[in-house]
Protein backbone atom coordinates (compact mmCIF):
# COMPACT_ATOMS: atom_id res chain seq x y z
CA UNK A 1 0.00 0.00 0.00
CA UNK A 2 1.16 3.52 -0.74
CA UNK A 3 2.42 5.70 2.10
CA UNK A 4 -0.07 8.42 2.90
CA UNK A 5 1.95 10.09 5.59
CA UNK A 6 5.67 9.87 6.11
CA UNK A 7 7.83 11.19 8.95
CA UNK A 8 11.58 11.33 8.49
CA UNK A 9 13.71 11.88 11.59
CA UNK A 10 11.28 14.43 13.02
CA UNK A 11 12.53 16.45 15.99
CA UNK A 12 10.59 18.96 17.99
CA UNK A 13 12.36 21.08 20.58
CA UNK A 14 10.41 23.59 22.66
CA UNK A 15 12.33 26.67 23.70
CA UNK A 16 11.10 27.43 27.20
CA UNK A 17 13.27 30.54 27.54
CA UNK A 18 16.28 30.99 29.82
CA UNK A 19 18.19 28.48 27.72
CA UNK A 20 15.85 25.68 28.76
CA UNK A 21 14.94 23.42 25.87
CA UNK A 22 12.54 20.53 26.03
CA UNK A 23 13.04 17.86 23.44
CA UNK A 24 9.54 16.51 22.85
CA UNK A 25 10.40 14.42 19.80
CA UNK A 26 13.92 13.08 19.35
CA UNK A 27 14.00 11.92 15.77
CA UNK A 28 10.84 10.00 14.94
CA UNK A 29 10.48 8.19 11.64
CA UNK A 30 7.61 6.06 10.38
CA UNK A 31 5.10 5.99 7.60
CA UNK A 32 1.38 5.42 7.59
CA UNK A 33 -0.23 3.55 4.73
CA UNK A 34 -3.46 4.59 3.14
CA UNK A 35 -6.44 2.84 4.66
CA UNK A 36 -4.59 1.79 7.82
CA UNK A 37 -5.77 2.09 11.43
CA UNK A 38 -2.93 3.13 13.71
CA UNK A 39 -2.87 3.76 17.44
CA UNK A 40 -0.12 5.92 18.85
CA UNK A 41 0.32 5.08 22.49
CA UNK A 42 2.37 6.35 25.36
CA UNK A 43 2.15 7.89 28.78
CA UNK A 44 1.58 11.55 29.24
CA UNK A 45 4.76 13.42 28.43
CA UNK A 46 5.87 10.77 25.98
CA UNK A 47 5.51 13.17 23.06
CA UNK A 48 2.37 11.67 21.53
CA UNK A 49 0.40 14.94 21.64
CA UNK A 50 3.27 16.81 19.99
CA UNK A 51 3.38 14.13 17.35
CA UNK A 52 -0.35 14.54 16.68
CA UNK A 53 -0.01 18.31 16.36
CA UNK A 54 2.82 17.90 13.91
CA UNK A 55 1.01 15.27 11.84
CA UNK A 56 -2.05 17.57 11.89
CA UNK A 57 -0.02 20.47 10.50
CA UNK A 58 -0.91 22.57 13.55
CA UNK A 59 2.72 22.96 14.52
CA UNK A 60 6.05 22.95 12.71
CA UNK A 61 8.92 20.58 13.19
CA UNK A 62 12.28 21.76 14.51
CA UNK A 63 14.04 19.44 12.10
CA UNK A 64 13.21 16.48 9.93
CA UNK A 65 10.54 16.18 7.32
CA UNK A 66 6.87 15.29 6.96
CA UNK A 67 5.30 14.38 3.67
CA UNK A 68 1.54 14.02 3.49
CA UNK A 69 -0.01 12.81 0.24
CA UNK A 70 3.24 13.61 -1.50
CA UNK A 71 3.40 17.19 -0.21
CA UNK A 72 6.26 18.38 2.00
CA UNK A 73 4.57 20.27 4.82
CA UNK A 74 7.71 22.19 5.71
CA UNK A 75 7.57 24.44 2.65
CA UNK A 76 4.03 25.66 3.25
CA UNK A 77 3.11 29.06 4.69
CA UNK A 78 0.33 29.63 7.26
CA UNK A 79 -2.30 30.19 4.59
CA UNK A 80 -1.37 27.05 2.69
CA UNK A 81 -1.27 25.07 5.92
CA UNK A 82 -4.79 26.20 6.82
CA UNK A 83 -6.06 25.16 3.40
CA UNK A 84 -4.19 21.88 3.66
CA UNK A 85 -5.64 21.09 7.10
CA UNK A 86 -9.07 21.96 5.79
CA UNK A 87 -8.99 19.46 2.92
CA UNK A 88 -6.62 16.74 4.08
CA UNK A 89 -7.01 16.29 7.83
CA UNK A 90 -10.03 15.64 10.02
CA UNK A 91 -9.54 16.26 13.73
CA UNK A 92 -11.42 14.59 16.56
CA UNK A 93 -10.59 15.96 20.01
CA UNK A 94 -10.91 14.55 23.49
CA UNK A 95 -13.25 17.35 24.63
CA UNK A 96 -15.23 17.38 21.34
CA UNK A 97 -14.58 21.11 20.78
CA UNK A 98 -17.82 21.86 19.00
CA UNK A 99 -18.56 25.57 18.52
CA UNK A 100 -21.14 26.45 21.15
CA UNK A 101 -22.96 29.10 19.11
CA UNK A 102 -23.63 26.76 16.23
CA UNK A 103 -26.11 23.91 15.92
CA UNK A 104 -24.90 20.37 15.35
CA UNK A 105 -25.41 20.57 11.60
CA UNK A 106 -23.74 23.98 11.40
CA UNK A 107 -20.72 22.56 13.20
CA UNK A 108 -20.51 19.85 10.57
CA UNK A 109 -20.85 22.47 7.84
CA UNK A 110 -18.03 24.63 9.23
CA UNK A 111 -15.09 22.97 7.40
CA UNK A 112 -17.15 23.03 4.21
CA UNK A 113 -17.76 26.77 4.64
CA UNK A 114 -14.00 27.25 4.82
CA UNK A 115 -13.66 25.09 1.71
CA UNK A 116 -16.24 27.21 -0.15
CA UNK A 117 -18.83 24.47 -0.66
CA UNK A 118 -22.17 25.99 -1.76
CA UNK A 119 -24.88 26.23 0.89
CA UNK A 120 -27.35 23.65 -0.37
CA UNK A 121 -24.70 21.04 -1.08
CA UNK A 122 -23.17 21.68 2.34
CA UNK A 123 -26.43 21.14 4.16
CA UNK A 124 -27.17 17.95 2.27
CA UNK A 125 -23.75 16.45 2.92
CA UNK A 126 -23.80 17.49 6.59
CA UNK A 127 -27.11 15.69 7.05
CA UNK A 128 -25.74 12.55 5.38
CA UNK A 129 -22.72 12.61 7.65
CA UNK A 130 -24.86 12.99 10.76
CA UNK A 131 -26.82 9.90 9.62
CA UNK A 132 -23.55 8.09 8.97
CA UNK A 133 -22.38 8.58 12.55
CA UNK A 134 -25.77 7.33 13.72
CA UNK A 135 -27.12 10.38 15.46
CA UNK A 136 -30.64 9.36 16.53
CA UNK A 137 -33.36 11.16 14.63
CA UNK A 138 -30.78 13.33 12.91
CA UNK A 139 -33.45 15.66 11.49
CA UNK A 140 -34.28 16.83 14.97
CA UNK A 141 -30.92 16.53 16.72
CA UNK A 142 -29.21 18.33 13.87
CA UNK A 143 -30.64 21.63 15.01
CA UNK A 144 -29.65 21.25 18.66
CA UNK A 145 -26.83 23.21 20.19
CA UNK A 146 -23.88 21.20 21.58
CA UNK A 147 -24.98 21.87 25.17
CA UNK A 148 -28.29 20.12 24.40
CA UNK A 149 -26.47 16.94 23.35
CA UNK A 150 -24.88 14.19 25.44
CA UNK A 151 -21.10 13.68 25.37
CA UNK A 152 -21.39 10.71 23.04
CA UNK A 153 -23.68 12.61 20.71
CA UNK A 154 -21.30 15.56 20.68
CA UNK A 155 -18.39 13.32 19.82
CA UNK A 156 -20.36 11.80 16.97
CA UNK A 157 -21.12 15.28 15.65
CA UNK A 158 -17.40 16.00 15.94
CA UNK A 159 -16.60 12.89 13.88
CA UNK A 160 -19.12 13.98 11.26
CA UNK A 161 -17.40 17.38 11.22
CA UNK A 162 -13.99 15.71 10.79
CA UNK A 163 -15.35 13.86 7.77
CA UNK A 164 -16.90 16.95 6.19
CA UNK A 165 -14.35 17.56 3.44
CA UNK A 166 -13.62 13.85 2.98
CA UNK A 167 -10.09 14.16 4.40
CA UNK A 168 -7.22 11.77 3.63
CA UNK A 169 -6.74 11.03 7.31
CA UNK A 170 -8.67 11.23 10.57
CA UNK A 171 -6.53 12.29 13.54
CA UNK A 172 -8.20 11.51 16.86
CA UNK A 173 -6.74 12.69 20.16
CA UNK A 174 -8.03 10.54 23.07
CA UNK A 175 -11.49 10.53 21.45
CA UNK A 176 -13.02 8.41 24.21
CA UNK A 177 -11.26 10.12 27.10
CA UNK A 178 -14.30 12.10 28.21
CA UNK A 179 -16.95 9.47 27.58
CA UNK A 180 -18.83 6.93 29.66
CA UNK A 181 -18.20 3.27 28.72
CA UNK A 182 -21.40 2.71 26.76
CA UNK A 183 -20.77 5.78 24.62
CA UNK A 184 -17.11 4.86 24.26
CA UNK A 185 -17.95 1.62 22.49
CA UNK A 186 -20.10 3.35 19.92
CA UNK A 187 -17.37 5.84 19.04
CA UNK A 188 -14.81 3.10 18.54
CA UNK A 189 -17.32 1.19 16.38
CA UNK A 190 -17.71 4.23 14.18
CA UNK A 191 -13.94 4.47 13.72
CA UNK A 192 -13.80 0.80 12.89
CA UNK A 193 -16.58 1.15 10.35
CA UNK A 194 -14.90 4.15 8.78
CA UNK A 195 -11.64 2.25 8.53
CA UNK A 196 -13.36 -0.72 6.95
CA UNK A 197 -14.77 1.58 4.32
CA UNK A 198 -11.22 2.71 3.50
CA UNK A 199 -10.56 5.74 5.70
CA UNK A 200 -7.07 6.15 7.18
CA UNK A 201 -7.30 6.58 10.94
CA UNK A 202 -4.73 7.56 13.54
CA UNK A 203 -5.78 7.49 17.18
CA UNK A 204 -3.59 8.93 19.91
CA UNK A 205 -4.36 7.34 23.27
CA UNK A 206 -2.90 6.14 26.53
CA UNK A 207 -5.65 3.54 26.94
CA UNK A 208 -4.67 0.00 25.86
CA UNK A 209 -8.34 -0.93 25.33
CA UNK A 210 -8.62 1.76 22.68
CA UNK A 211 -5.24 0.81 21.23
CA UNK A 212 -6.40 -2.79 20.72
CA UNK A 213 -8.88 -1.63 18.11
CA UNK A 214 -6.11 -0.62 15.73
CA UNK A 215 -4.17 -2.82 13.37
CA UNK A 216 -0.90 -1.19 14.28
CA UNK A 217 0.35 0.21 17.58
CA UNK A 218 3.26 2.66 17.74
CA UNK A 219 4.46 3.19 21.30
CA UNK A 220 6.33 6.36 22.27
CA UNK A 221 8.45 7.05 25.28
CA UNK A 222 10.47 10.17 25.95
CA UNK A 223 10.05 11.34 22.41
CA UNK A 224 11.22 8.19 20.76
CA UNK A 225 9.50 5.16 19.27
CA UNK A 226 10.16 2.18 21.49
CA UNK A 227 7.75 -0.26 19.87
CA UNK A 228 5.99 -0.51 16.49
CA UNK A 229 3.82 -3.60 16.24
CA UNK A 230 1.23 -4.76 13.75
CA UNK A 231 -1.76 -6.79 14.97
CA UNK A 232 -3.69 -9.14 12.68
Amino acid sequence: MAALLELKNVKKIYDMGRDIHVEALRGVSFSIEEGSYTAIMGHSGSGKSTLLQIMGCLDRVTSGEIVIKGTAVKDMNDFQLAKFRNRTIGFVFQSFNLIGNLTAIENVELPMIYAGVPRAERRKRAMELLKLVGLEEPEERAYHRPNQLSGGQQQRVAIARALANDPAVILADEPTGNLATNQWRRILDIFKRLNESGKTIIIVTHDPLVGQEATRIITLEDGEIIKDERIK
Partner: protein
Amino acid sequence: MEILLEAFRSLGKDKLRTFLSMLGIVIGVIAVIVAIAIGAGTTANVTARISSLGSNVIIITPGFTGGFGGRAAMALTSVLQETDVQNIQQMAPDVADVTPILQKNFNVIYQATNTVVTVVGAYPDTFSILDLPLQSGRLLNQNDENADANVAVIGNVIATTLFGNEDPVGQTVYVSTGGFQVPITIVGELKQTGSKLTFNPDNMLIIPYTTAAAKLIQLNGGVSQIIASAKSAQTALNAVDEINNILYMRLQNTNQYRVISQNQILSTVSQTTDVLTLLLASIAAISMVVGGIGIMNIMLVSVTERTKEIGVKMAMGATRRRIMVEFLVESMFITIVAGAIGVGLSFLIAALVTYLASGLRLTVIITWPSIVLSFGVSVAIGLFFGLYPAYLASKKSPVEALRYE
Protein backbone atom coordinates in the same frame (compact mmCIF):
# COMPACT_ATOMS: atom_id res chain seq x y z
CA MET B 1 -23.05 35.71 4.73
CA GLU B 2 -22.18 32.96 7.23
CA ILE B 3 -19.77 35.38 8.86
CA LEU B 4 -22.55 37.88 9.45
CA LEU B 5 -24.82 35.22 10.84
CA GLU B 6 -22.12 33.92 13.14
CA ALA B 7 -21.32 37.43 14.35
CA PHE B 8 -25.00 37.92 15.10
CA ARG B 9 -25.12 34.65 17.02
CA SER B 10 -22.09 35.25 19.18
CA LEU B 11 -23.22 38.79 19.95
CA GLY B 12 -26.66 37.47 20.80
CA LYS B 13 -25.20 35.05 23.30
CA ASP B 14 -24.37 37.81 25.77
CA LYS B 15 -27.04 40.38 25.07
CA LEU B 16 -26.34 42.58 28.06
CA ARG B 17 -22.67 42.89 27.19
CA THR B 18 -23.43 43.66 23.56
CA PHE B 19 -26.04 46.22 24.58
CA LEU B 20 -23.68 47.95 27.00
CA SER B 21 -20.89 48.13 24.48
CA MET B 22 -23.33 49.60 21.98
CA LEU B 23 -24.51 52.21 24.46
CA GLY B 24 -21.35 54.31 24.25
CA ILE B 25 -21.66 54.65 20.50
CA VAL B 26 -25.42 55.22 20.63
CA ILE B 27 -24.98 58.08 23.08
CA GLY B 28 -22.08 59.48 21.09
CA VAL B 29 -24.04 59.47 17.83
CA ILE B 30 -27.05 61.12 19.49
CA ALA B 31 -24.81 63.75 21.08
CA VAL B 32 -23.09 64.59 17.80
CA ILE B 33 -26.29 64.79 15.77
CA VAL B 34 -28.23 66.78 18.36
CA ALA B 35 -25.32 69.15 19.01
CA ILE B 36 -25.01 69.89 15.31
CA ALA B 37 -28.80 70.13 15.01
CA ILE B 38 -28.99 72.71 17.79
CA GLY B 39 -26.14 74.63 16.18
CA ALA B 40 -27.83 74.55 12.78
CA GLY B 41 -31.14 75.52 14.33
CA THR B 42 -29.64 78.48 16.17
CA THR B 43 -27.84 79.66 13.07
CA ALA B 44 -31.04 79.43 11.04
CA ASN B 45 -32.95 81.25 13.74
CA VAL B 46 -30.51 84.11 14.07
CA THR B 47 -29.97 84.33 10.33
CA ALA B 48 -33.69 84.57 9.73
CA ARG B 49 -34.02 87.36 12.26
CA ILE B 50 -31.08 89.29 10.87
CA SER B 51 -32.24 88.78 7.31
CA SER B 52 -35.47 90.55 8.15
CA LEU B 53 -33.37 93.68 8.18
CA GLY B 54 -33.04 93.64 4.40
CA SER B 55 -29.74 92.73 2.88
CA ASN B 56 -28.79 96.23 1.75
CA VAL B 57 -29.34 98.02 5.02
CA ILE B 58 -26.45 99.70 6.79
CA ILE B 59 -26.84 101.17 10.24
CA ILE B 60 -24.42 103.71 11.69
CA THR B 61 -24.43 104.19 15.45
CA PRO B 62 -22.18 106.01 17.87
CA GLY B 63 -19.47 103.71 19.15
CA PHE B 64 -20.38 101.82 22.24
CA THR B 65 -18.21 103.27 24.94
CA GLY B 66 -18.64 100.13 26.93
CA GLY B 67 -19.90 99.83 30.45
CA PHE B 68 -23.12 101.40 31.58
CA GLY B 69 -22.91 104.44 29.35
CA GLY B 70 -23.22 102.44 26.14
CA ARG B 71 -26.93 102.50 25.64
CA ALA B 72 -27.57 106.00 26.88
CA ALA B 73 -24.75 107.31 24.73
CA MET B 74 -26.45 105.95 21.66
CA ALA B 75 -29.49 108.09 22.19
CA LEU B 76 -28.01 111.21 23.64
CA THR B 77 -24.55 111.91 22.39
CA SER B 78 -24.13 113.94 19.29
CA VAL B 79 -21.14 112.09 17.88
CA LEU B 80 -22.99 111.65 14.62
CA GLN B 81 -24.01 114.87 12.89
CA GLU B 82 -26.47 115.82 10.18
CA THR B 83 -23.43 116.88 8.15
CA ASP B 84 -22.32 113.23 8.14
CA VAL B 85 -25.60 112.36 6.44
CA GLN B 86 -24.97 114.99 3.75
CA ASN B 87 -21.36 113.86 3.31
CA ILE B 88 -22.36 110.23 2.90
CA GLN B 89 -25.05 111.22 0.41
CA GLN B 90 -22.56 113.16 -1.68
CA MET B 91 -19.37 111.13 -1.36
CA ALA B 92 -20.34 107.46 -1.10
CA PRO B 93 -21.10 106.21 -4.62
CA ASP B 94 -22.37 102.80 -3.50
CA VAL B 95 -24.90 104.23 -1.06
CA ALA B 96 -28.40 104.59 -2.49
CA ASP B 97 -30.24 106.34 0.32
CA VAL B 98 -29.18 107.72 3.66
CA THR B 99 -31.32 109.22 6.42
CA PRO B 100 -30.79 110.37 10.00
CA ILE B 101 -32.73 109.11 13.00
CA LEU B 102 -33.50 110.80 16.30
CA GLN B 103 -34.32 108.42 19.08
CA LYS B 104 -35.14 108.70 22.77
CA ASN B 105 -37.33 106.99 25.36
CA PHE B 106 -40.36 108.89 26.72
CA ASN B 107 -43.34 108.22 28.91
CA VAL B 108 -46.31 107.97 26.60
CA ILE B 109 -49.81 108.33 28.02
CA TYR B 110 -53.11 107.14 26.60
CA GLN B 111 -56.07 107.52 28.95
CA ALA B 112 -55.07 105.56 32.05
CA THR B 113 -52.11 103.82 30.44
CA ASN B 114 -48.65 105.25 30.94
CA THR B 115 -45.70 103.41 29.49
CA VAL B 116 -42.13 103.98 28.31
CA VAL B 117 -41.88 104.03 24.53
CA THR B 118 -38.96 104.61 22.19
CA VAL B 119 -39.89 107.68 20.19
CA VAL B 120 -38.15 107.92 16.84
CA GLY B 121 -37.92 110.95 14.61
CA ALA B 122 -37.52 109.79 11.05
CA TYR B 123 -37.90 111.09 7.51
CA PRO B 124 -40.45 109.34 5.25
CA ASP B 125 -37.74 107.46 3.30
CA THR B 126 -36.89 105.50 6.49
CA PHE B 127 -39.98 103.36 5.86
CA SER B 128 -38.76 102.31 2.45
CA ILE B 129 -35.12 101.81 3.49
CA LEU B 130 -36.06 99.55 6.39
CA ASP B 131 -38.96 98.04 4.48
CA LEU B 132 -41.56 98.70 7.17
CA PRO B 133 -44.99 97.45 6.10
CA LEU B 134 -48.19 99.26 7.02
CA GLN B 135 -51.06 97.43 8.68
CA SER B 136 -53.64 100.23 8.74
CA GLY B 137 -53.86 103.97 8.27
CA ARG B 138 -51.02 105.71 6.40
CA LEU B 139 -47.26 106.26 6.63
CA LEU B 140 -45.68 109.64 7.35
CA ASN B 141 -45.09 111.90 4.36
CA GLN B 142 -43.31 115.07 3.35
CA ASN B 143 -46.34 117.22 4.26
CA ASP B 144 -46.03 116.01 7.86
CA GLU B 145 -42.37 117.03 7.79
CA ASN B 146 -43.09 120.46 6.35
CA ALA B 147 -45.77 121.14 8.94
CA ASP B 148 -43.86 119.79 11.97
CA ALA B 149 -47.09 117.85 12.37
CA ASN B 150 -47.82 116.07 15.64
CA VAL B 151 -48.54 112.75 13.96
CA ALA B 152 -47.09 109.29 14.37
CA VAL B 153 -46.97 105.77 13.01
CA ILE B 154 -47.06 103.24 15.81
CA GLY B 155 -45.43 99.82 16.10
CA ASN B 156 -47.62 96.76 16.38
CA VAL B 157 -46.63 95.57 19.84
CA ILE B 158 -46.68 98.94 21.57
CA ALA B 159 -50.06 99.68 19.94
CA THR B 160 -51.52 96.68 21.72
CA THR B 161 -49.96 97.80 25.01
CA LEU B 162 -51.46 101.25 24.72
CA PHE B 163 -54.78 100.62 23.01
CA GLY B 164 -55.58 96.97 23.63
CA ASN B 165 -58.07 95.87 21.00
CA GLU B 166 -58.98 99.41 20.01
CA ASP B 167 -57.93 100.69 16.58
CA PRO B 168 -55.01 103.06 17.31
CA VAL B 169 -55.48 105.05 14.09
CA GLY B 170 -57.07 108.38 14.86
CA GLN B 171 -56.31 108.24 18.60
CA THR B 172 -54.20 110.83 20.37
CA VAL B 173 -51.45 109.98 22.84
CA TYR B 174 -49.43 112.32 25.02
CA VAL B 175 -45.64 112.24 25.04
CA SER B 176 -44.41 113.51 28.37
CA THR B 177 -41.26 115.64 28.34
CA GLY B 178 -40.04 117.67 31.28
CA GLY B 179 -43.45 118.73 32.54
CA PHE B 180 -44.91 119.27 29.09
CA GLN B 181 -47.16 116.84 27.33
CA VAL B 182 -46.97 116.84 23.56
CA PRO B 183 -50.13 115.46 21.94
CA ILE B 184 -49.49 113.14 19.02
CA THR B 185 -52.15 111.75 16.73
CA ILE B 186 -51.68 108.21 15.42
CA VAL B 187 -52.14 108.08 11.65
CA GLY B 188 -50.92 104.58 10.94
CA GLU B 189 -50.02 101.23 12.47
CA LEU B 190 -47.14 99.02 11.27
CA LYS B 191 -47.26 95.29 10.81
CA GLN B 192 -45.21 93.29 13.25
CA THR B 193 -41.66 92.86 11.82
CA GLY B 194 -39.51 91.72 14.72
CA SER B 195 -36.26 93.38 15.65
CA LYS B 196 -34.27 94.93 12.84
CA LEU B 197 -30.86 94.86 14.44
CA THR B 198 -30.47 97.91 16.70
CA PHE B 199 -33.96 98.82 15.72
CA ASN B 200 -37.23 97.31 16.91
CA PRO B 201 -40.10 99.06 15.09
CA ASP B 202 -42.67 96.93 16.95
CA ASN B 203 -42.00 98.95 20.08
CA MET B 204 -41.57 102.37 18.47
CA LEU B 205 -43.58 105.49 17.99
CA ILE B 206 -42.30 107.04 14.77
CA ILE B 207 -42.89 110.79 14.28
CA PRO B 208 -41.65 113.22 11.61
CA TYR B 209 -37.98 114.09 11.97
CA THR B 210 -38.64 117.80 12.08
CA THR B 211 -41.31 117.38 14.72
CA ALA B 212 -38.89 115.38 16.88
CA ALA B 213 -36.07 117.90 16.39
CA ALA B 214 -38.29 120.85 17.20
CA LYS B 215 -40.31 119.54 20.11
CA LEU B 216 -38.84 116.41 21.68
CA ILE B 217 -35.25 115.49 20.86
CA GLN B 218 -32.97 118.49 20.56
CA LEU B 219 -29.46 117.39 19.70
CA ASN B 220 -28.20 120.60 18.08
CA GLY B 221 -27.45 119.12 14.72
CA GLY B 222 -26.51 115.74 16.22
CA VAL B 223 -28.37 112.55 15.24
CA SER B 224 -28.94 109.31 17.16
CA GLN B 225 -28.31 106.94 14.30
CA ILE B 226 -27.93 107.05 10.56
CA ILE B 227 -29.64 104.52 8.36
CA ALA B 228 -28.40 103.92 4.83
CA SER B 229 -29.01 101.47 2.05
CA ALA B 230 -26.46 100.16 -0.40
CA LYS B 231 -27.27 100.20 -4.10
CA SER B 232 -27.27 96.38 -4.10
CA ALA B 233 -26.40 93.50 -1.83
CA GLN B 234 -23.19 93.03 -3.83
CA THR B 235 -21.98 96.55 -3.19
CA ALA B 236 -23.01 96.56 0.48
CA LEU B 237 -19.48 95.94 1.70
CA ASN B 238 -18.07 98.68 -0.54
CA ALA B 239 -20.69 101.05 0.81
CA VAL B 240 -19.64 100.14 4.38
CA ASP B 241 -16.01 100.96 3.51
CA GLU B 242 -16.98 104.28 1.96
CA ILE B 243 -19.02 105.27 5.01
CA ASN B 244 -16.20 104.24 7.32
CA ASN B 245 -13.77 106.43 5.39
CA ILE B 246 -16.09 109.44 5.43
CA LEU B 247 -16.68 109.19 9.18
CA TYR B 248 -13.00 108.65 9.89
CA MET B 249 -12.09 111.82 7.99
CA ARG B 250 -14.11 113.86 10.46
CA LEU B 251 -13.85 111.92 13.72
CA GLN B 252 -10.32 110.47 13.36
CA ASN B 253 -11.24 107.72 15.81
CA THR B 254 -12.79 104.42 14.83
CA ASN B 255 -14.07 103.84 18.39
CA GLN B 256 -16.54 106.70 18.15
CA TYR B 257 -18.82 105.13 15.57
CA ARG B 258 -19.86 101.80 14.27
CA VAL B 259 -20.99 100.90 10.80
CA ILE B 260 -23.01 97.72 10.80
CA SER B 261 -24.30 95.87 7.78
CA GLN B 262 -26.31 92.74 7.68
CA ASN B 263 -23.60 90.84 5.83
CA GLN B 264 -21.07 91.62 8.51
CA ILE B 265 -23.40 90.54 11.24
CA LEU B 266 -24.41 87.42 9.40
CA SER B 267 -20.81 86.36 8.96
CA THR B 268 -19.97 87.19 12.57
CA VAL B 269 -22.96 85.26 13.80
CA SER B 270 -22.34 82.29 11.59
CA GLN B 271 -18.68 82.25 12.59
CA THR B 272 -19.67 82.29 16.24
CA THR B 273 -22.28 79.60 15.92
CA ASP B 274 -19.95 77.54 13.73
CA VAL B 275 -17.29 77.64 16.42
CA LEU B 276 -19.84 76.75 19.08
CA THR B 277 -21.25 73.91 16.99
CA LEU B 278 -17.77 72.61 16.33
CA LEU B 279 -17.00 72.75 20.04
CA LEU B 280 -20.20 70.92 20.99
CA ALA B 281 -19.73 68.34 18.26
CA SER B 282 -16.10 67.76 19.28
CA ILE B 283 -17.08 67.10 22.86
CA ALA B 284 -19.75 64.74 21.58
CA ALA B 285 -17.23 63.08 19.28
CA ILE B 286 -15.00 62.37 22.26
CA SER B 287 -17.80 60.29 23.73
CA MET B 288 -17.83 58.27 20.50
CA VAL B 289 -14.11 57.61 20.85
CA VAL B 290 -14.69 56.55 24.46
CA GLY B 291 -17.41 54.24 23.17
CA GLY B 292 -14.90 52.86 20.68
CA ILE B 293 -12.42 52.13 23.45
CA GLY B 294 -15.22 50.30 25.26
CA ILE B 295 -15.80 48.17 22.20
CA MET B 296 -12.12 47.42 21.91
CA ASN B 297 -12.13 46.33 25.53
CA ILE B 298 -15.10 44.02 24.97
CA MET B 299 -13.56 42.58 21.83
CA LEU B 300 -10.27 41.88 23.62
CA VAL B 301 -12.16 40.03 26.35
CA SER B 302 -14.13 38.19 23.69
CA VAL B 303 -10.96 37.15 21.84
CA THR B 304 -9.44 35.79 25.04
CA GLU B 305 -12.62 33.97 26.03
CA ARG B 306 -12.88 32.37 22.63
CA THR B 307 -9.25 31.36 22.31
CA LYS B 308 -10.21 27.70 22.23
CA GLU B 309 -12.85 28.33 19.59
CA ILE B 310 -10.24 30.14 17.50
CA GLY B 311 -7.93 27.13 17.84
CA VAL B 312 -10.68 24.72 16.79
CA LYS B 313 -11.57 26.84 13.78
CA MET B 314 -7.95 27.01 12.75
CA ALA B 315 -7.68 23.21 13.06
CA MET B 316 -10.77 22.92 10.85
CA GLY B 317 -8.97 24.98 8.22
CA ALA B 318 -9.95 28.59 8.95
CA THR B 319 -7.22 30.86 7.62
CA ARG B 320 -5.82 33.69 9.76
CA ARG B 321 -7.56 36.17 7.49
CA ARG B 322 -10.87 34.43 8.03
CA ILE B 323 -10.50 34.62 11.83
CA MET B 324 -9.60 38.28 11.59
CA VAL B 325 -12.61 39.08 9.40
CA GLU B 326 -14.93 37.22 11.78
CA PHE B 327 -13.93 39.42 14.70
CA LEU B 328 -13.87 42.60 12.63
CA VAL B 329 -17.39 41.88 11.41
CA GLU B 330 -18.48 41.51 15.02
CA SER B 331 -17.10 44.85 16.16
CA MET B 332 -18.43 46.59 13.06
CA PHE B 333 -21.79 44.94 13.53
CA ILE B 334 -21.92 46.46 17.02
CA THR B 335 -21.09 49.95 15.79
CA ILE B 336 -23.29 49.84 12.70
CA VAL B 337 -26.31 48.76 14.72
CA ALA B 338 -25.41 51.24 17.47
CA GLY B 339 -24.97 53.99 14.88
CA ALA B 340 -28.36 53.23 13.35
CA ILE B 341 -30.04 53.20 16.76
CA GLY B 342 -28.29 56.47 17.58
CA VAL B 343 -29.52 58.12 14.38
CA GLY B 344 -33.06 56.94 15.07
CA LEU B 345 -33.04 58.06 18.68
CA SER B 346 -31.53 61.43 17.84
CA PHE B 347 -34.73 62.33 15.96
CA LEU B 348 -36.65 61.46 19.10
CA ILE B 349 -34.30 63.47 21.31
CA ALA B 350 -34.43 66.41 18.90
CA ALA B 351 -38.22 66.39 19.04
CA LEU B 352 -38.02 66.22 22.82
CA VAL B 353 -35.56 69.12 23.01
CA THR B 354 -37.76 71.21 20.74
CA TYR B 355 -40.77 70.41 22.90
CA LEU B 356 -39.08 71.07 26.25
CA ALA B 357 -37.33 74.22 25.08
CA SER B 358 -40.28 75.68 23.21
CA GLY B 359 -40.17 78.74 25.46
CA LEU B 360 -36.56 79.42 24.55
CA ARG B 361 -37.17 79.82 20.81
CA LEU B 362 -34.68 76.97 20.32
CA THR B 363 -34.86 75.41 16.91
CA VAL B 364 -33.35 71.98 16.31
CA ILE B 365 -32.58 71.13 12.70
CA ILE B 366 -31.13 67.67 12.03
CA THR B 367 -28.95 67.92 8.96
CA TRP B 368 -28.03 65.13 6.55
CA PRO B 369 -24.30 65.76 6.82
CA SER B 370 -24.45 65.27 10.59
CA ILE B 371 -26.21 61.93 10.15
CA VAL B 372 -23.79 60.75 7.50
CA LEU B 373 -20.84 62.03 9.54
CA SER B 374 -21.78 60.46 12.85
CA PHE B 375 -22.86 57.18 11.29
CA GLY B 376 -19.68 57.09 9.22
CA VAL B 377 -17.55 57.84 12.24
CA SER B 378 -19.22 55.09 14.26
CA VAL B 379 -18.56 52.57 11.48
CA ALA B 380 -14.97 53.80 11.28
CA ILE B 381 -14.65 53.42 15.04
CA GLY B 382 -15.86 49.82 14.78
CA LEU B 383 -13.23 49.17 12.14
CA PHE B 384 -10.45 51.02 13.94
CA PHE B 385 -11.01 49.72 17.46
CA GLY B 386 -11.93 46.24 16.21
CA LEU B 387 -8.76 45.92 14.17
CA TYR B 388 -6.33 45.27 17.00
CA PRO B 389 -8.40 42.60 18.81
CA ALA B 390 -9.12 40.91 15.47
CA TYR B 391 -5.42 40.99 14.63
CA LEU B 392 -4.58 39.41 18.00
CA ALA B 393 -7.17 36.69 17.35
CA SER B 394 -5.71 35.89 13.95
CA LYS B 395 -2.16 35.75 15.27
CA LYS B 396 -2.82 33.03 17.80
CA SER B 397 -0.87 29.83 17.41
CA PRO B 398 -3.32 27.00 16.68
CA VAL B 399 -1.57 24.64 19.09
CA GLU B 400 -1.64 27.08 22.00
CA ALA B 401 -5.18 28.19 21.23
CA LEU B 402 -6.36 24.56 21.27
CA ARG B 403 -4.66 23.96 24.59
CA TYR B 404 -6.39 26.99 26.17
CA GLU B 405 -9.04 26.14 28.73
